[in-house]
């Protein structure tokens, strides 16, 4: 059947839309688009984002003489053998608790924010950047041991 030329053009146009549309939204293409975003995010730096309301005059640090920070830790002084043993036992208990929590996190929720203590499930309530890992970095258990290590290797 012959159609006038302008109807053929319309038919082809509609056909292209119908056939072409699924291709545009195929998972493969969508995946590509995602990867592209990921690639872009690798080179993205928050510091290079244009500031909309820039600070024109920065508040300077307070000036004045520095004073030493007083010691926070208790000074045990001279200890009897029994006292020393008791303190060591207590210290080991603290360390054991830390190790228990740390190992639980490592086994069940490594690189997630938190481990649920009973079910062992991993949760991401704090942005999903491994909150427990980063938070525990500053925990004295690690830090103290780090210092011990440093002193031992001196």
């Amino acid at each position, binding site marked *: 059947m012959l159609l006038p030329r302008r109807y053929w053009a319309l038919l082809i146009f509609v056909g292209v839309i119908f056939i072409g549309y699924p291709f545009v939204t195929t998972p493969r293409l969508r995946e590509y688009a995602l990867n592209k975003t990921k690639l872009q995010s690798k080179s993205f730096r928050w*510091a290079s984002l244009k500031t909309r*309301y820039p600070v024109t005059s920065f508040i300077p640090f307070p000036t004045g003489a520095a004073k030493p920070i007083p010691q926070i830790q208790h000074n045990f002084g001279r200890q009897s053998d029994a006292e020393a043993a008791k303190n060591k036992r207590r210290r080991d208990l603290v360390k054991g608790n830390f190790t228990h929590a740390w190992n639980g996190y490592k086994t069940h929720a490594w690189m997630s924010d938190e481990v649920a203590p009973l079910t062992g499930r991993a949760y991401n*309530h*704090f942005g*999903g950047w491994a*909150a427990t890992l980063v938070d525990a970095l500053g925990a004295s258990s690690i830090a103290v041991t780090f210092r011990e290590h440093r002193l031992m290797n001196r």
Partner: protein
Amino acid sequence: MELYDEFEVAVAAVEKIDFTTCAVEELNVFETTIRYLGGLLAAHDLSEGKYPGLLQKAIELGDMLYVAFDTPNRMPIARWKWEDAKSGKAQVSSSWVLVSEVGSLTLEFTRLSQITGDIKYFDAVQRVMDQFDVQQNLTRLPGLWPVVIDTQNLNFTKDGSFTLGGMADSLYEYLPKVRILSWRHYLTMSDFHIATSSSRRPNRPIPKTLPECHATY
């Protein structure tokens, strides 16, 4: 030592964290600051700068959080839609904010400025604390700040509920700590006594005690 090895494992894992993106749509700036930025900076200090990756990550995260302060009055957004900010959308601070969520950012931002020498982080939080200073004696319980404040219109005086407990505690915790950190003064026991004992008598106005405590950083 076994834990020492764990520390090295942890640092290597931290170096892989990508702060250009996030698993949640709305980021809690306070929680992110105290847990992540605080954790990174504490580890940097305690390991005496031995792991440059820790400071690198702290700067990356600090630069991310700094964008939450990019509002017309430079007050931060406590529950922050980071993707909108990333795409360059204009943002304003909220008119309903838990007081400690904007009042407990000073330690980490101040320390980051001290370590990097870049004053912008300190400047960002000092602007917030300047507002706390201005409004401290204008509240319904002069000397203390209410649980909820309006950082969009810079009104910290409307709300009538006060506490030293949850939702406010870290604000009061950070005041003396940042004073210590700022190296200019350190808290003496008498300051601490004044600040705590007077705020336990909520019916009595407490002029010029806490301001004196906080005006020094």
